[in-house]
């Protein structure tokens, strides 16, 4: 599971930045991992894996603002931890059948959120999405990451990413319909 050897930090500047980020947030990320895994060694491994993934594509990470870097690391460590937990407990992620196809077209459903909802309603809606769907939506809609990139970042198959996006969009659609009825 641990892929520490993948780390490819190319410059001293990147190394120093990531080392500083690690010093600042290691306890936070450990606490998030521990809340999912309840085991010291596994939680430390999850932190290690998180940094290994960040170090794998450092340019992308360092382009983010400080707040975004923190959120990104939180999201990765949580997903890594959940993945480790599932792996240890032999819980398999059920994948969608091939006939359910995620529509990856332009102007996706997510954009409609901004037109239809006010900020408070939108926050409430995003907060009640299952964390994994929310994470994938965040990476896709905000960071414009490709399905393949998201799958790699979160250690799931591309099909699972599509599946979660599909469900998130279904939820958006339902909510939009509900809003229409209320009007």
């Amino acid at each position: 599971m641990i892929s520490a050897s993948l780390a490819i930090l190319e410059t001293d500047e990147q190394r120093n930045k990531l080392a500083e980020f690690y010093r600042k947030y290691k306890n936070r990320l450990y606490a998030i991992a521990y809340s999912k895994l309840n085991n010291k060694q596994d939680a430390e491994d999850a932190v290690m894996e998180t940094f290994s993934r960040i170090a794998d594509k450092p340019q992308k990470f360092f382009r983010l603002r400080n707040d975004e870097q923190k959120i990104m690391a939180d999201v990765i460590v949580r997903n890594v931890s959940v993945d480790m937990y599932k792996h240890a407990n032999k819980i398999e992620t059920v994948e969608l059948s091939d006939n359910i196809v995620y529509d990856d077209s332009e102007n996706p459903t997510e954009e409609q959120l901004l037109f239809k909802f006010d900020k408070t309603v939108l926050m409430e809606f995003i907060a009640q999405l299952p964390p994994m769907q929310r994470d994938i939506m965040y990476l896709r809609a905000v960071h414009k990451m490709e399905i393949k990139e998201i799958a790699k970042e979160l250690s799931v198959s591309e099909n699972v990413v599509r599946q979660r996006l599909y469900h998130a969009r279904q939820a958006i659609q339902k909510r939009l319909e509900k809003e229409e009825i209320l009007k």
Partner: protein
Amino acid sequence: MNDYTLEEVFEIVYKQEFVEFDNPRKHRFSSRHRRAMKNILHPKSQTKSVDCKVDLSHIPLHKRLLVFSVLIFLAVITGAAFIFRIVGFSGTVYPDNIHMFSLNDPNAPKTIEEVYYLEALPGRYEYADGYGEIGDGVIRRVYTDQQNGGHISFEQYAKCVYNVHYDNEHCTFEELEINGYNGFIWRSNQSELKEICWDNGDYILSICGEIDENEAIFLAKSAKIL
């Protein structure tokens, strides 16, 4: 469109979600973790140490068994001692025993700071005896198999303390890997007795007893910090 972005909304939601981790307790990371992070953050600092009389580190695993056999044979025939080095360990082959040490690792704890246990130890094993605790150089736990009365021992050594003699008559001695870490298995040819010993990055761990080899490896792979 509204005067806010999806990004802003997500940020607020995530900040609320992770707010309980804003002031985390300070965790004392293990030296194993610290070393691994050092390799991620400063990969250029990784070095290889090779300065030995017989270095087996770069010989394929299946050929090392042959080399061990030759060294033991030479020690018996000549009465001389041969020093060899494998990854993490150094050993001296004498005519009637092999003396194993851990290679000097300045980053390794000098005493036991974190205690390991065997997560996969079946319920039929009951704790029988032992010694050592945090702060000591060695911790040993002996368990009895309630079904057949056999015993296994699980030992944890600070690397600087590890210093063990193994019989090399009527036995085999072979390298193996446990969760990616190097170690070796010693097997008696006259009984089911065997010992698996490996360097887990921080400590030397060993499982010894009259136990099936696959079960011993399975148990070794399940070693975790208590």
